[in-house]
């Protein structure tokens, strides 16, 4: 089984050798094309004249253009196979595909049947290569031959796939509220830390880190670790503590990065202990944040009351150039457009509550933005959403889309209790990312 990561962009390769890049570099890569290439690669050698047929789309969300998506996958896989491979222009069941393979004048040497599914927020492709029985008598006498090659690929649903599905209406999002006993929450992270396929929720307070899940109206803690056991105290902390957390998922369990401005960075496994290979990361006092697939670290400048550098968490060298010299809140995400191109969006709030957004060469600033911040493509339309809070007055959780020319409000949830932290959860049982917010003694799940 192979999980297809979002295309590893050229920028990340360059970053790996230490280059420092701007905050928003576009990368052209279609996730559908990449998925098709992965299928072709995993199948190995296939007969030259293969017929590629896609199944009708199985989807756990409404897919008004499902047949188009399936047919598109068939043609992309055929293109990836090269040679004389050709694609059937409409989806059909396997039995029909077998019949189709020896019908007509262009008889195929083999049929590649691609089962196309959209489930759990993923595009899942299962490809089986079947030989074609040329003799009609053999076809009648014997059972259909089993597949001779197999491939399975899955990839997160992004704007390119979402364009074939029913659109997500953020304006109609519902809020579910859960109580928690973690005390004042400084930061949250959401993702598959256990490696079990579902999302785990991490709450970070000044005193401890709690991993758990939401169930029956409350946050159920599975494991806790005192902050003192995770990171050494910082030489010069910020008087107002700030924390962050980021989960990097893995099939055998992910890694949780957590940091406080008054403690050093820690990288721990699902059991909240530091594996040996991550122990080197537990020294520098910095805040880990995700930037696309990677985790980078924000270095606090306690005397200035913010952060000024974005560095490699392990080596400490410069990693990204922030859009403003001093910022006190940060979020970044790689947003995949409907054309499959990926662009990094960075949001950084300066201490005067002005939010600076960058996307490629484009930039935009908006004032009076609160300190809780997240960027993601929540409706998977290729346009980034900014989740933020209020800088003054009664607090609220605000979701806006960064359209051309400015932020378009999509959702506003009044939060008189004050929003302490926000995070975005990857798609799970439903089809789109969700937002979690710590509001006093409650966790709000917005989806």
């Amino acid at each position, binding site marked *: 089984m192979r999980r297809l990561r979002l295309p590893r962009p050229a920028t990340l390769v360059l970053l790996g050798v230490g280059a420092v890049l701007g905050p928003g570099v576009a990368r052209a890569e279609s996730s559908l094309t990449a998925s098709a290439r992965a299928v072709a690669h995993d199948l190995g050698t296939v007969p030259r004249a293969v017929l590629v047929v896609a199944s009708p789309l199985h989807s756990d969300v409404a897919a008004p253009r499902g047949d188009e998506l399936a047919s598109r996958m068939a043609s992309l896989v055929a293109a990836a196979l090269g040679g004389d491979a050709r694609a059937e222009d409409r989806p059909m069941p396997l039995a029909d595909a077998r019949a189709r393979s020896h019908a007509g004048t262009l008889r195929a040497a083999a049929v590649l049947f691609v089962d196309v599914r959209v489930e759990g927020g993923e595009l899942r492709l299962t490809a089986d290569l079947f030989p074609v029985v040329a003799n009609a008598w053999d076809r009648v006498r014997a059972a259909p031959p089993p597949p001779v090659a197999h491939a399975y690929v899955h990839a997160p649903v992004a704007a390119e796939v979402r364009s074939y599905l029913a659109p997500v209406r953020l304006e109609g999002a519902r809020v579910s509220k859960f109580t928690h006993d973690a005390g004042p929450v400084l930061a949250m992270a959401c993702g598959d830390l256990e490696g079990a396929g579902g999302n785990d929720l991490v709450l970070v307070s000044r005193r401890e880190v709690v991993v758990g899940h939401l169930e029956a109206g409350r946050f159920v803690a599975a494991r806790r670790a005192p902050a003192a056991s995770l990171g050494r105290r910082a*030489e010069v902390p910020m*008087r107002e503590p700030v924390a962050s957390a980021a989960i990097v998922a893995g099939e055998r369990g992910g890694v949780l990065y957590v940091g406080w401005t008054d403690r050093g960075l820690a990288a721990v496994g699902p059991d909240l202990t530091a594996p040996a290979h991550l122990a080197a990361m537990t020294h520098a006092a910095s805040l880990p944040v995700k930037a696309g697939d990677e985790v980078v670290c924000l270095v606090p400048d306690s005397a200035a009351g913010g952060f000024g550098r974005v560095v490699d968490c392990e080596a400490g060298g410069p990693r990204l150039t922030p859009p403003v010299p001093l910022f006190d809140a940060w979020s970044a995400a790689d947003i995949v457009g409907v054309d499959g191109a990926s662009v990094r969006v960075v949001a950084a709030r300066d201490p005067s509550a002005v939010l600076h957004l960058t996307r490629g060469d484009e930039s935009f600033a908006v004032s009076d933005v609160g*300190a809780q911040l997240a960027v993601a493509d929540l409706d998977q339309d290729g346009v980034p959403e900014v989740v933020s809070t209020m800088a003054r007055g009664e607090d609220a959780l605000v979701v806006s889309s960064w359209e051309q020319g400015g932020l378009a409000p999509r959702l506003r949830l009044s939060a008189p209790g004050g929003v302490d932290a926000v995070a975005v959860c990857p798609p799970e049982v439903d089809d789109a990312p969700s937002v979690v917010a710590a509001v006093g003694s409650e966790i709000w799940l917005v989806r």
Partner: protein
Amino acid sequence: MSADRPALRPTRRQALVAAGVLVSQALLARPILARGRIALGGRLSLRVPWPVAAIDPHRLDDAAALFFGLCLFDSLYAVDASGAISPALAESLPEPSPTGVSVALREGVRFASGKRLTARDVSASIARARASGANGWLDPVGAVRVTRSGALALGGRAVDRVARALASPLTAIVPEGFAPERPDGTGPFAARRQGDALVLGRNRFAAQGPSFLDELSISPAADLGASLRAFESGEDDLGWLGLGLHEPRRGAVPFDAGLLGWAILRTGDQAGRWNAPGVAQRLADGIEPARLAHLGVRADSPAQPDDGWGGAPTALLVRADSPWLVELARAVAVALSRPGHEVTVSPVAAAELGAARSSRAYGLALDLVRPFDQTPLGAYVALVTSEDPVRGAQLARRPPLGGAAGTPRVTGRLLRVGVVADVRLQGGRMPDLVLPPGPSGVGVDFGAIVHPRLRVL
């Protein structure tokens, strides 16, 4: 008829409950504002009727340290409002060792001067605190030794008692060779002199985090009116003991950050037979609270009937550079004097008062005492030590039954010092200037003050 009816005056408990309800209602009615970050910046200024030319965290009678010690200094441990102890300059609580306990210091901590904190600084600070009057209080700590590896080994074995002793502001950690005139510490501010003023700027190396304010300027007030005059005119941001000199500053509200120490009356050898345990406290208890009200002294209990000073005419020594104490001395002298038994205020230099205190060559003296911490034991040991450091050390080891549990005035009945008045941090402020309480629940955490013009964003 109505004269026969008992007055419907609320009891103290009822008044406290009512005040609590009002405060909680006010808090409930207040909308909870957006959670932004606290903006750094701004400058505040105030004048105090106390000397600020030097600040010595280890002195029991240091007024500047009483009010502003937390701005500049940290101890190895800290006590919160619930009494819980947590590491401050130490990495963790003391660890038992074969010879006592060991204390690991936080790595990378620097004083405001940039000098790195070492175990030698801690050892020197403890020795200095002991020499300045904390010998009894530090008794549980035992011998202090810096190991070859630079660690700190203490002879004390009771982890809790060691940590509590080292959590006192009177055991703050300063660099070796510390000079009170050029104070250097790990607190949120770094000190510098500007004329007569003590100017506290943000300490970029602060071990608990640099201050939110850019600067806090503290000037000595020549008299009690100077601070109120400056506050009333808007020149200062805090008014000492009131809302204004001639009339309250418009919109100003009072604040009271709690009891920080005590003004004490001492009896010396020149008091003759009046130099006996309990006399000073009896004299202090006989002063009508109304006589001290203009100094912000609250009447916790009515005056006890007393005949005042009955010894030979004598001088009441007081530090000349402390206008508040001088004013208090005047009020005390008037209250105690009787015909033929006059008490005359004699303002003297701090050094002269110190010498008289050591030799006990005085009749009466008015002084200041800081508690070691907010517990009854902290008050008890401070008062006993202020009378006699040697006896203080002995009594600190074995407090008499009930002695440490009583109020400071009860303790004073055992001593040749008596509590005259509480010393409180109180006065006037504008409503938008919020004064966060100190970590232990009393005083003001000046490092956490947010300038009112820099709202939380």
